[in-house]
């Protein structure tokens, strides 16, 4: 019994059928509890007023935007090294979810920044790196869409993902060097001193869990969809060949 067993599409689909109801359920529960708790039952911050409630969307989305890319990097590596189709399809499935997370982080950030910093957008390092990450996601998806042969597409996109990761990290530091920011430091870190206060912290953790679970559920579901697309395509191709053979036979 090893993890690689689930590289078999049938096994993977079986696993995801069993796991997905739980994932969807817990994701909905965590998001529901976390967002309602955060929205209705937390106090306003004494400086930021009620805008602090945006944190329950902004921080988890930003976190997931980065984690989604990281997950794509890992499954791309698995595809390059072990050539399991499921992992390549999982990378394809995760990218649009990552885009949505990046978009949420950018939009909520802009809406939050307007009253707090007096501007929708500033060329702050964190904001800028997210915009660059967004561009990387777009390029990655566009490459998937542009190539017809699925294996070629999987190979090219996974190499793009590796190279993109290097350059995304480089850009992160380059941008840091280039401009000083308005954005505060990490809101969540192991260093207790820097953390947000406990009242905000616990609902925030619940929301983070909700976003993680929602991401997993979506990736499982979308990977399943991609596997079925593959299978349908193979069936239709075989059908075409069968029809051709019949014609020749007659």
């Amino acid at each position, binding site marked *: 019994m090893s993890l690689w067993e689930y590289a078999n599409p049938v096994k993977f689909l079986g696993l995801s059928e069993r796991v997905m109801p739980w994932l969807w359920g817990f994701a909905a529960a965590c998001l529901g509890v976390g967002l309602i708790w955060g929205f209705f039952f937390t106090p306003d911050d004494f400086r930021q007023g009620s805008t602090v409630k945006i944190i329950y969307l902004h921080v988890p989305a930003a976190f997931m935007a980065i984690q989604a890319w990281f997950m794509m990097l890992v499954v791309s590596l698995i595809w390059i090294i072990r050539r399991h189709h499921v992992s390549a399809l999982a990378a394809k499935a995760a990218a649009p979810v990552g885009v949505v997370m990046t978009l949420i982080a950018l939009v909520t950030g802009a809406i939050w920044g307007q009253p707090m910093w007096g501007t929708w957008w500033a060329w702050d390092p964190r904001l800028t790196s997210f915009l*660059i990450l967004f*561009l*990387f996601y*777009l*390029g990655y998806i*566009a*490459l998937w869409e*542009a*190539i017809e042969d699925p294996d*070629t597409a999987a*190979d*090219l996109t996974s*190499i*793009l993902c*590796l*190279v*993109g990761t290097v*350059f*995304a990290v*480089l*850009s992160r530091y*380059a*941008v840091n*060097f*280039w401009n000083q920011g308005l954005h505060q430091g990490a809101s969540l870190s192991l260093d207790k001193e820097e953390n947000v206060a406990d009242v905000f912290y616990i609902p925030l953790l619940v929301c983070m869990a909700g976003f993680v679970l929602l991401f997993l559920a979506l990736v499982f579901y979308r990977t399943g969809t991609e596997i079925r697309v593959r299978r349908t395509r193979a069936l239709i191709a075989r059908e075409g060949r069968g029809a051709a053979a019949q014609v020749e036979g007659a």
Partner: protein
Amino acid sequence: MRALFLRDLVLALRAGGGFGLGLAFFLIVVVLVPFSVGPSSELLGRIAPGVLWLGALLACLLSLDRLLAVDWEDGALDLLATSPLPLEGVIAVKAAAHWVTTGLPLVLAAPVLGVLLNLAPQGYGVLVLSLALGTPALSMIGAFGAALTVGIKRGGLLMSLLVLPLYVPTLIFGAEAARRAAEGQDPATPLLFLAGITAGVLACMPFAAGAVLRVNLR
């Protein structure tokens, strides 16, 4: 290897695409800038390093889709793949030829265009130096992008989308060095970063580009 380099150079020269087009594009971008932001020489002088860098970057991008596409269409790339020269070498040589036909003229033309944009006198040396350090990386990254999209019809637009985000670090450090020098500050730190990125790109990117090209030729 040398033969391939010379062949690419000669082809680029004969077709007139490399030298002429890239330079003309660079010139036009620089000429259009004052029309769009106004003729104030103080403002132009302030944005000159950035504009020159951006213009050079776009001019570099412009000629990239011809880098591999021609050889792909007439089958020369398949021949090169079967030759003893590894594909990593092929792509590195092609990037070098692209740099000589596009990057180098841009580097040499930049100070002339700097005059048009009223660049501060102390900025010229570092501007040329930063472009000379940065454009090889632009060519090599571009070769990677060209290798990624070589099999796609009308892949030019897609290639821009893929390549431009990869240009960000080079652009930031290059333009920062040129800007600092023009404002009389010390440009050493960004220049070192820029040189580091270029060295890293030149060392690693041929392998990524070669792998991509091998996939596309499969």
